[in-house]
């Protein structure tokens, strides 16, 4: 095994161990809160990458599934009188399935379009979700928001810990799904669609079915993460879960880390989310952190159009070739 591969494996193992014991070594709520949001975005960006990164279809509407997931869990918990504590977590997969079904419906329509039209159609669906949540007042509470069960028994430093592990489990699920797809025949078909959809069709890739499958698979973890988020913040409002900024953050993290790679979305989330939270704390409601987001997006597009991971891989490959050549 090459030294680089050994280093990679050791690094990966260390990262997993740190992620698993983080609440034990840094139990203060400000750190675990930061960890909850960072891990949440690792899961979101990784899920988005299954569609956007592998097929090249840029969806700016994935926040819709986040919102549907959050509202699904809130409504189910309230209507089924689920006791606060660990029980609502059992409904998270149901929220994922509901988001998946919504994705089939949206994807069935949106995937009749390509390129910029697809981007616009997905944004439109996201805003339709927001409008539904605002206007179906009897069901969702409308602009007044929707409350979740509040686990009072988890007081003090421990409160964030179950949510951290729930988010971590979902991030692992998203990563495992992405890894499996990347190595499968299905994944190969998705990459072919990204490169040239017509050629992919010509060699036998069922492009329509595959795009819809990728769209749905990427929406399910997003819905589940949205559900855990809703439970974590205990109250959701339409504009904060059907939020275009959540969708844009996923895209930006994937572009920064590396589109279509496994490590790229993780790296993008690790770099951007803590920075974004710092900006949000410092500048509060001014939303000045959006300027930071815009600046990062501009810099990535100008200097790292393929993202950090592919650029570093290319650099290493060039170096290896230089060393190999006499």
């Amino acid at each position, binding site marked *: 095994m090459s030294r680089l591969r050994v280093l990679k494996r050791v690094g990966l193992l260390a990262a997993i161990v740190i992620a698993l014991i983080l609440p034990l070594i840094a139990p203060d709520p400000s750190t675990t809160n930061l960890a909850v949001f960072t891990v949440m975005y690792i899961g979101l960006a990784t899920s988005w990458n299954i569609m956007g990164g592998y097929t090249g279809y840029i969806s700016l509407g994935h926040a819709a599934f986040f919102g549907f997931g959050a509202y699904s869990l809130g409504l189910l918990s309230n209507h089924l009188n689920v006791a606060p504590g660990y029980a609502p977590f059992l409904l998270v997969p149901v929220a994922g399935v509901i988001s998946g079904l919504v994705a089939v419906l949206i994807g069935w329509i949106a995937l009749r379009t390509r390129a910029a039209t697809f981007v616009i159609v997905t944004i439109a669906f996201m805003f339709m979700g927001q409008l539904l949540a605002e206007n179906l007042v009897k069901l969702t509470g409308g602009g007044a928001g929707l409350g979740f069960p509040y686990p009072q028994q988890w007081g003090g430093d421990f409160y964030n810990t179950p949510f951290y592990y729930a988010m971590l489990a979902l991030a692992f699920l998203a990563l495992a799904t992405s890894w499996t797809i990347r190595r499968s*025949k299905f994944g*190969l*078909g998705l*990459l*072919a669609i*990204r*490169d*040239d959809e017509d*050629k*992919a069709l*010509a*060699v*036998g*890739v069922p492009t329509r079915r595959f795009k819809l499958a990728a769209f749905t698979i990427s929406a399910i973890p997003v819905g589940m993460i949205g559900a855990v988020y809703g439970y974590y913040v205990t109250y959701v409002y339409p504009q904060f879960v059907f939020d275009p900024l959540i969708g844009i953050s996923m895209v930006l993290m994937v572009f920064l880390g590396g589109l*279509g790679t496994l490590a790229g979305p993780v790296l993008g989330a690790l770099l951007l989310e803590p920075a974004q939270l710092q900006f949000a704390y410092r500048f509060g409601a001014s939303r000045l952190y959006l300027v930071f987001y815009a600046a990062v997006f501009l810099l990535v597009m100008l200097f790292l159009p393929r993202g950090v991971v592919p650029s570093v891989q290319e650099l290493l*490959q060039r170096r290896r070739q230089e060393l190999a050549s006499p």
Partner: protein
Amino acid sequence: MAGLLELERVTAGYGGGDILHELDLSVEDGGITCIVGPNGAGKSTILRVVSGLLRPRLGAIRFRGASIVGLTPRAILQRGIVQVPQERSLFPTMTVWENVRMGAYTERDQRLIDRRLEEVCEAFTVVRERRDEPAASLSGGQQKIVEFARALMLDPALVILDEPSMGLDPKTRSTVFETIRAMNRAGRTILLVEQNARSGLGLASHGVVLESGRVRLEGDGPAVLNNPEISRLYLGATA
């Protein structure tokens, strides 16, 4: 030798009128058949009717004795006719290995795919040497050879090559033609359409000169190449 592919009195064209007029053509099993001719002679139309992209208006097309007229391109592919198009057809950001695997995308038997990958690696060293590099990083000639390798993943009986030397420098062109010869020696029947008549006919066991949708001359490749009239018309030789 028996004709692997037979076109009999084929008339075909597009909305504007017929391009092929009662064309007869036979592709010998195990040989290299090269079609040459000026622009508009109907070379590409022949390939389109054989691969099922264009249905002939009249006439018969038989592959291994069975009619393939009216079959879908996918069904024709599954019967063992594979075409390497003129333009670049690799997936640029996918690796060389992934591109070659795409050639057998419709095949479900993984062991068969693995065996064919092994065979393709043996036949085309560039696939093994550059397997993890993006296809776009290869030179034009290397990309063409990877396209050949991909075409062989379905173990076709007939490989159709549309202008394989297009846009290549002379040295790379000779490598590509050498690869075509090697594929034929390995038992593949080749139907080659080539603008570069000298290289194409020099390689072919059977040469066909097409003009205005009809066969103007055919015979052994070298004999057609040395025909004085053909030399004058297509190869620029002085009378």
